[in-house]
């Protein structure tokens, strides 16, 4: 028996993951597995974004960039080297996380880079990275990269079931990390940073270190899930890897679900992805964007703390003086 509450919570999340791992045994239809893949991919992205940007309230528009860095790290390593897929997988985490750590080390030296300014810097940087990738022939060079042939015979082997299981494992890992952070000491430090960095710092929190490391972890997880996505796409090109819609959707899912809880972004990711798939299924891809955007506006007005905020036990009230 696992006695402490966090151990039980972790076991519960892992059990849910194992349950979902039965899906390929239930249905081998590519449509079902791909829908599951999409749900888990967006869950991983939204929950990992929330680790830093939600918990510490540093909204980043760079999550799509870190995801894209992961995609291109894997596509490049699969096509340009003969290293096994596992190496490319881990490298996707390391490169995306490493870029975020360097960025954090530079930006968080000054407390000015928070709020709008932090968002703006991450947004601009995403365009810079996309331009660099597009103009570097080793990575892409503007022609796109065919990953499908290179992925043949690797661990993933272009199999929908294996792709699904890989992303499921990553989603489970990410949710467990978010859960452990939210319920532990690290989360307390991040919440203090969200509320008042000066108070956090004077209460002994090394705010610089906490921010740099959490930003790195958040970005690294986005890069990690980018790795199977390179194989999922089969053909990787800048326009579909670095569109602005990815960071915007991630932001929307997390805010919709609630950024102050570990589970909020899961709700947001599942709802938005499901709604999108349903509308696209009706042949309404453009309408879906409008409807989802309007839903978001309404929901933010109705519950500013997100859907997860409604489910939380402790009321969060504003201090009046």
């Amino acid at each position, binding site marked *: 028996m696992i006695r402490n509450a966090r151990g039980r919570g972790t076991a519960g999340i892992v059990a849910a993951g194992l349950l979902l791992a039965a899906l390929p045994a239930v249905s081998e239809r590519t449509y079902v597995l791909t829908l599951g893949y999409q749900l888990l991919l967006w869950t991983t992205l939204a929950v990992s974004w929330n680790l830093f940007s939600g918990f510490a309230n540093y909204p980043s528009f760079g999550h799509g960039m870190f995801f894209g860095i992961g995609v291109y790290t894997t596509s490049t390593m699969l096509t340009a080297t003969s290293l096994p897929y596992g190496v490319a997988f881990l490298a996707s985490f390391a490169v995306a996380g490493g870029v975020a750590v360097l960025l954090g080390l530079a930006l968080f030296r000054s407390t000015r880079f928070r709020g709008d300014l932090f968002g703006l810097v991450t947004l601009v940087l995403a365009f810079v990275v996309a331009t660099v990738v597009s103009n570097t022939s080793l990575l892409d060079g503007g022609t796109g990269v065919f990953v499908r042939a290179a992925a043949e015979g690797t661990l993933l082997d272009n199999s929908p079931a294996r792709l699904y299981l890989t992303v499921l494992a990553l989603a489970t890992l990410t949710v467990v990390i978010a859960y452990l952070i939210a319920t*532990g000491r690290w989360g307390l430090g991040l919440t203090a940073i969200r509320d008042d960095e000066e108070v956090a710092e*004077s*209460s002994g*929190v090394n705010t610089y270190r906490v921010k740099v490391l959490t930003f790195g972890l958040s970005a690294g997880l986005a890069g990690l899930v980018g790795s199977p996505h390179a194989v999922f796409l089969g053909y990787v090109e800048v326009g579909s890897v670095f569109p602005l819609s990815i960071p915007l959707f991630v932001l929307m899912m997390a805010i919709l679900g609630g950024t102050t809880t570990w589970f909020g972004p899961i709700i947001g990711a599942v709802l938005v992805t499901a709604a999108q798939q349903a509308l696209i299924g009706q042949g309404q891809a453009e309408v879906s964007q409008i409807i989802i955007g309007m839903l978001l506006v309404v929901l933010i007005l109705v519950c500013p703390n997100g859907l997860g905020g409604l489910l939380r036990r402790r009321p969060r009230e504003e201090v009046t003086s």
Partner: protein
Amino acid sequence: MSLLRCEGVTKYFGGLRALDGVDLVVDPGEIVGLVGPNGSGKTTLMNAISGTFGINAGRVEFDGTDVTGMRPHQRAHLGIARTFQIPKPLPSLSVIDNVALAYTFGRDQVPMGRARQLAGDLLAELELAGKALAPVAHLNLHERKLLGIARALGLEPRLLLLDEVLAGLNPTEVDLGLAMITAVRDRGVAVIYIEHNVKAVTSISDRLYVLNRGTNLVDGNPRDVVADERVVAAYLGDAHADPA
């Protein structure tokens, strides 16, 4: 050896010279009152000691260590804790977690479970135990100030910086506050105490520093200091200091 030694502390805000070569010494376990007219640099000195910002010249030494270039959390780990003039409870956290934060991120990095226990004990001592699990929005001003002190004490400091903790409180609460500050000192914690209420500050301080326009004016025994002509002049104008 003195616990805190500030030498020639100088701080500019743009062209404004908020502190101009201020010296201050605090010995272990003493209460030092810090008074002065509005804008004399009391809170700026507090921020310079706790590390909120860097200083332009001078030196801050704590327990023999030069802390001038250190960040606030490093100074907190060495044993410098502070409160804020306007209490700043963290609104997303319960009362007990506001205090547990200091225990778990303080010098000893106590694990969370133990940190909550210690925080609960401390809140009980300060008679806030009844509100331990409440959101901070449920606290009144007096309780918020107490919470600020509790969070500072959670760092298990050797020097506590109190910025106007009694302002805005009723006379009963002021008396309770003074008794509490004395109790903190009796645990061996030195206190620097900024206060506008001169009567309150003279009653419990071992020594008094008076700042005026960012410089040292007078310091020493509280009774002598408040009677000093220069102090009266700074507060009330020259006419009152020199009736002749």
